[in-house]
């Protein structure tokens, strides 16, 4: 566990594997196996118990039994999808029906495993989910940083960025200058300042970011 944390280079906190299954034997077996492999595991007997877990902010992935009594797996997935918290889900099911698997994958699940399954396959899926989660967390972090940098632009700089995003074919300094009624030199100056402030490598990267996330 310490090893894993040490290897991790980015500032992603420790990841947890959440196991939700009403069958105590299955739950215990998975938990034991994963813990022996070095994962941090937190198990729950029902969807409700999971939703009321003590540290909901902890990141991780969810190994979820499909056929839970009460709120079933699919319903829990829908609830989680409505929360603004990335939580990749690996469904495990004793039923293994194709329509249910289809619905689960449609709802964003990483995979659907039919019981019984090899632990190696589960570990593989968990690692994939963790990788996906880490990417997501890094992207979120970059976004947060970029959004903060864009917020530090001046009014003129914002004007220039808006024009560039609005007219991606007319991004030469001359064209922008003609549009805004200022000198191309001034535009060149502003563009350098903008790229410096936002830590973007090119105008194209800037336009793509703003097009995706807005100017804030």
């Amino acid at each position, binding site marked *: 566990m310490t090893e894993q944390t040490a290897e991790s280079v980015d500032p992603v906190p420790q990841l947890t594997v959440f196991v939700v299954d009403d069958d105590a034997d*299955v739950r215990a077996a998975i938990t034991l196996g994963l813990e022996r*492999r070095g994962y941090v595991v937190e198990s729950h007997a029902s969807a409700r118990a999971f939703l009321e877990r003590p540290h909901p902010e902890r990141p991780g992935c969810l190994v979820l039994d499909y056929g839970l009594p009460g709120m079933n797996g699919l319903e829990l997935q829908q609830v989680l999808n409505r929360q603004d918290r990335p939580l990749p889900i690996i469904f495990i099911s004793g*039923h293994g029906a194709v329509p249910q698997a289809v619905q689960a994958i449609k709802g964003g699940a990483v995979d659907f495993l*039919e019981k019984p*399954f090899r632990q190696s396959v589960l570990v593989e899926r968990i690692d994939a989910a963790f990788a996906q989660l880490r990417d997501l967390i890094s992207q979120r972090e970059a976004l947060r940083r970029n959004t903060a940098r864009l917020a530090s632009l001046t009014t003129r700089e914002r004007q220039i960025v808006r024009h560039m995003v609005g007219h991606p074919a007319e991004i030469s300094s001359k064209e922008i200058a003609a549009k805004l009624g200022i000198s191309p030199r001034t535009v060149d100056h502003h563009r350098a300042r903008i790229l410096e402030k936002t830590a973007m490598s090119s105008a194209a990267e800037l336009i793509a970011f703003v097009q995706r996330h807005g100017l804030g």
Partner: protein
Amino acid sequence: MNRSLGALLAVGLAGLQFLAVLAVVFSSYVTSERALVRHARDLLRDVGVNTGAHSMGFLSPAQGAAELAARLAQSDVVASDDPAALEKLLFQQLQLAPQFAGLYFGGQDGSFVYVMRSGDSAGPFRTKIITQRGGRRQVEVLWRDDAFRLRSRSSLQDDAYDPRLRPWYAKAKAARGTIWTDPYIFFTSQQPGITLAAPVMGGNDVLRGVVGVDIEISSLSDFLARLTIGKHGRALIVNRNGDVLAHPEPQLIKTRAADGGLRFTNLDEIGDPISRAAFAASWHDGVVALPGAQSLEREFVHQGSNYLSVLQPLDSDQLPWIIGVYAPENDFIGDLKRNRTVNIVLAALVSLLTGLLGLALAEYIHRPVRAFAVRSALISQGEMDPDTPPPRTYRELARANDALVREIVARRQTELEYGQALDNSPTAIARVALESGAIERVNRQFCLLTGHDRDSLTAMALADLCAPGDRGEDDLADGERLWRRADGSLIWVALNGMLIHDDAGRPRHRVMLAENITPRKQMEAELDRLRSDLSHLVRVSTMGEMAAGLAHELNQPLAAIAQNSDTARLILSEHPDVDPVLDRLLLAIEEQSLNAGSIIRALRSFINKDAGERSRFELGPLLEQSLKLVRGEASDAGICIRPEVCDEPLLVEGNRVQIAQVVLNLLRNAVEAMAGRPGRIWLRVTAGAGALTVTVEDDGPGVTPGLTLFSQFETSKPGGMGLGLSICQSIVEAHGGRIWHEPRPGGGSRFHFTLPQGGAGAAEEA
């Protein structure tokens, strides 16, 4: 058979009086004929009697003369040995009767005196005298005139005549009394005659001689010829030996004998066949015999003519003669017969005349009756208004006519109403013949039902309507039949027949009621199909559900085993000194648990293949059919099911049978939940946003708290498997719907399930 009044009158008035005339004519004819025949017989008998009397009257003088002469000689008044005296006596006697041909005396000594009528020119009388005096025989012949004067005399030398050898002498001598010889033809006169002889006795009763008389009887024939017996009647006299002694045709009675002499003609040979025929019945073996010597009356037929005859014996002890009289019947009744023909022709004419008169009269009487009959027929056929005034007729007929016309009018009205009722009846009705089943009459509904028009139907038999292959043994029996309509389509009909009887109770024809039961038949067939599909589905889905449940239950421990064995191997790898076999065992455990999982998966996917075909259909009719399937159990349990299904079509896409199974399961659960109590069940469909909700609600005891309704192998029913609701859930979810339960306010349960409307949504993905 009904008799025609006209024919009766004609026969009565013409025929009967013809018979009457005929009877009168015939009766008078028969009566007069019989009287005439009797009269003719009397006549014949009289002729016979007369002839007999005449014959006796003719012969009796001879007897008197002979006996007188004999007595004179006997009493010596005339000496028998005095030829002259004898001659004189005999001569006197001969003159007494013209029929005497001669008288003679033969003496016992051989003397002979014979006086006879002579045809010689020498004199009218001739006498032959033979004397025997002193042994000397002398024969002398004398001829005398009427006054006994001698005309001439001569002697005969070679005459050997001896009176004692003659038959008459011998017979009289033997009889010692008067005798008659049989008639014979006299030698001298060649006339028929007879000889009578009387003996002359002396003292001491010694025969002295015999006196004889020859009588010619040819005048008997003359007498007979003179008789008038009718027109063609005749009489004849026959000796007992058959010799014909007298006959109206005298030449017939003489026949030349074999010795050259003459003899009497016998009955056998006489040239008068009618006479032969008249005696034929009494003529046997050469003897004519009359039974009891009585007269015999006969009728005989000769050459096609009827004759009457009377045979009568002569009233004499010594002469065995028989007098026959005969005459053709026509002599007496010929006129009558001729008259009869005339009478019959007359009667026929009179009959014809009166017959024609009778026919005319019959026609006159019958005409009003006929006109009346024609009028009745026209009224009954509806071709004449019953109110038209009737023709002039008899009072009795007019009254009968009034009653009849009223009856006919009432009848036609009834017939009209019956016909309209039949024709307007909403039931298809046909009248058919008893044996053949030929259609005689149909109503409009029957035409509509079969698609044929009236004319083609009345040319068919009921059996012709049956579809090929559905022709039963008895096409007229009640029951359900498959018929082929005119356009070729097939319909099911329920046939009900009833026999119509006449007044006498004999069946006349059959009236068949046909009801179209095709829609009912189709619904029954659909229900049967659904029922059989359901039972198949129940088996399949129960098995599938069991497999699915088992798979889930088994997969859990298998999953735990696989995880645990893997973890165990992980731990084992941290201890290098442990026996490596342990690792292999743990690997085997893991692989075997995974293997078991794949076996279960294979089994389940195999069963899940039978998901059934999906189609778009209307929910309403399916719910109605499902209701029909449980209605029996429900009404047995005293439970009333109320469907509340909206009328507009509710389209669903899915498997009809599976959805029917869900509905049926819920309904059956509700019925069973009542536990024998009467109650109510509601079946409801509500259309919501893109989905239809089917609700089954009951006012039973409700669901036991704590029971997980839709899990497998959980049940509140004794003997239940706990699969029903689980299967329902599987089916509904496979259709993209949802199934749930809620308690009914006021007691009972409500089960709902949804189906995406029009088959949209998840059903397509599944």
